[in-house]
């Protein structure tokens, strides 16, 4: 089968196999070819790609739910969309959700995803009570911060390279409504955006959409969106089925002019200040879920996301420099997202660190990777790193310097005999 992830780059020929019981998975793992698990393919790059992949979509059963405590036990192929559909009407929501609900629980743990509430609660893994991991040997280990802790810390954020997460027990949070009270604030530049992020650090949810083509005093022009769970409104607002993007548009349609026009329009479409608007969860958390495969608008060469995190001390300086470069190069980013991050955690390859993260969605074009190589240097100079789940091109050096705990990750891979059996195009590129 042809296989690709969200960025539609690269596309490879792969052999995909599925399973519905542990015994079936054990048999699949006993073959000698290296494999990597593949969930919903919502990672952007090549972390879930390999000539042989284990598709987890059929391992998707709910195993238990405690209505009193909100502890949910599921198989790895259950999606966040399933969890919302089933449990939101019963008054429970995800403790951490990324910007799309069409990902699996296995994928959420492997990327240790973060949401708009990272500054308050941290990553997805914080709400994983335990997980069961099948090693290539077929052995299943129970992992939590206290039990097989090294394997737990390597698996959360470990990009599928430590085994197949079979099941996980995750903590949901109680909610009284399927609505969010949303506040939007227009920020004229980066300084104002930073100021507003800090001033609103007590908000449960915060994220800013940022116009990356602005220069000079307008650099960082953005709209900060804040949210709190509402007490009013009902529990089951209709989540709409995504509209398909039926054709791949010519990539040329997306250029610095069209992006600039869009950004101007989008920025102006927000009033200066909106307070406490009751918004259903779907458009608040998942604006991009409206269109399936929206990436087709980037043309047939596909796209990527460049997501970096910088420590707080150097964030302002670093982000200004980076956005300056981007504007100077005119590589239009349709989607730029800025977010304040809370402290990092103990997992070896988890992405967030205390500071700011910027995510830019970029069309693949010949000069792009050269520009990104330059940005890499700026990121490193400011003590930052790139998000593995979005990455499709960084080199080994960038990885090692961005993730100083990579050695601990390596030694777990060695200790449990994982190196020769679990590999992705990404792990080969990074030499891990």
């Amino acid at each position, binding site marked *: 089968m042809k296989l690709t992830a969200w960025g539609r780059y690269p596309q490879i020929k792969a052999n995909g196999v*599925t399973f519905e*019981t542990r015994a079936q998975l054990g048999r699949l793992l006993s073959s000698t070819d290296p494999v990597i698990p593949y969930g919903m393919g919502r990672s952007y790059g090549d972390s879930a790609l390999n000539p042989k992949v284990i598709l987890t979509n*059929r391992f998707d*059963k*709910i195993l*238990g*739910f405690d209505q009193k405590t909100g502890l949910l036990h599921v198989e790895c192929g259950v999606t966040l969309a*399933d969890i919302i559909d089933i449990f939101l009407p019963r008054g429970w929501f995800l403790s951490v959700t990324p910007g799309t609900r069409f990902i699996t629980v296995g994928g959420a743990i492997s990327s240790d995803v973060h949401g708009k509430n990272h500054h308050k609660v941290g990553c997805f893994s914080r709400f994983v009570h335990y997980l069961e991991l099948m090693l290539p040997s077929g052995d299943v280990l129970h992992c939590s911060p206290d039990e097989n802790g090294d394997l737990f810390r390597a698996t959360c954020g470990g990009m599928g390279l430590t085994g197949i997460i079979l099941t996980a027990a995750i903590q949901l949070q109680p909610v009284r409504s399927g609505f969010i009270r949303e506040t939007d604030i227009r920020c004229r530049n980066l300084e104002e955006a930073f100021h507003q992020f800090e001033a609103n650090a007590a908000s449960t949810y915060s994220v800013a959409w940022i116009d990356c083509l602005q220069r000079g005093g307008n650099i960082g022009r953005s709209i900060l969106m804040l949210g709190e769970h509402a007490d009013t409104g009902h529990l089951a607002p209709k989540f709409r089925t995504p509209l398909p993007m039926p054709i791949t548009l010519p990539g040329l349609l997306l250029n610095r002019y069209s992006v600039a026009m869009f950004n101007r329009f989008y920025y102006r479409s927000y009033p200066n200040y909106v307070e406490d608007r009751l918004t259903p969860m779907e458009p608040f958390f998942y604006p991009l879920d409206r269109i399936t495969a929206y990436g087709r608008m980037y043309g047939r060469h596909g796209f990527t996301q460049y997501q970096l995190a910088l420590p707080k001390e150097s964030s302002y300086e670093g982000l200004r420099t980076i956005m300056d470069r981007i504007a100077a190069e005119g590589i239009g980013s349709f989607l730029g997202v800025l977010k304040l991050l809370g402290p990092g955690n103990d997992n070896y390859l988890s992405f967030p660190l205390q500071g700011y993260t910027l995510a830019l969605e970029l069309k693949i074009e010949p000069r792009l990777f050269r520009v990104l190589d330059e940005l890499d240097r700026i990121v490193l100079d400011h003590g930052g790193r790139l998000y593995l789940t979005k990455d499709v091109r960084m080199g080994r050096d960038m990885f090692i310097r961005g993730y100083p705990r990579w050695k601990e990750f390596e030694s777990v891979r060695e200790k449990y005999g994982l190196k020769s059996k679990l590999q992705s195009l990404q792990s080969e590129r990074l030499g891990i």
Partner: protein
Amino acid sequence: MRLLILGGNSDIALATARVFAREERADVVLASRDMEVLEKRAADIRLRYRVRAESVYFDACDYESHPAFYAGVTPKPDGVVLAFGTYAEQSDVGDDFEKGRQLIDTNFTGAVSILGIVASDFERRGHGFIIGIGSVAGLRGRQSNYLYGASKAGLGVYLAGLRNRLSKCGVHVMTVLPGFVRTKMTEALDLPGALTASPEDVAADIYRGFCKRKNTIYSKWFWRIIMGMIRVTPEPIFKRLTM
């Protein structure tokens, strides 16, 4: 509503059971051979939708067991989904009669055996519906899978006949004709992405067809057009094609 799903371990069956449990709050009885998987599925449906879901052993090829099997389903179902089936490429069957018979015994004879029992019960009660899963492969014989196609063609004619008979007593029969679907049945095949549906797509089509009391549905819808073109191609031309 109480729904009996024959071949409850089919991937299309699971997706269909989930849709009916969600939309109709239907209780489901999953019937198939692999009891480990079947019970896992039933437990999942109970937790997801808070409906009753049971698993029962059923072998489509053990015809003698069918009367007792159906008698054991209590209370009687309001609807039956026939989903079991086996697939083989013609290149794997060849002219080996035993292999060919396996397809026919399951897809056709097994269906006739169990649906006969269901039909007379529904007719007597003047109540019920039957959803039978055929295949677009049963609409025209092609060298790549004509024995499978023949077993599904037989099923298609049988379902049409049942529909004709049972319409007189208010029992509806719907024939489902899927094209390519990504399930464990087709895992080893290299299916063309753009034409291939997910089991959830097919289940959604089935549920929509059920609500509208359709007689025959294609899934996805464009197979109606593709098969229309294949069916009108004159035999002298068709027989020279390699399909």
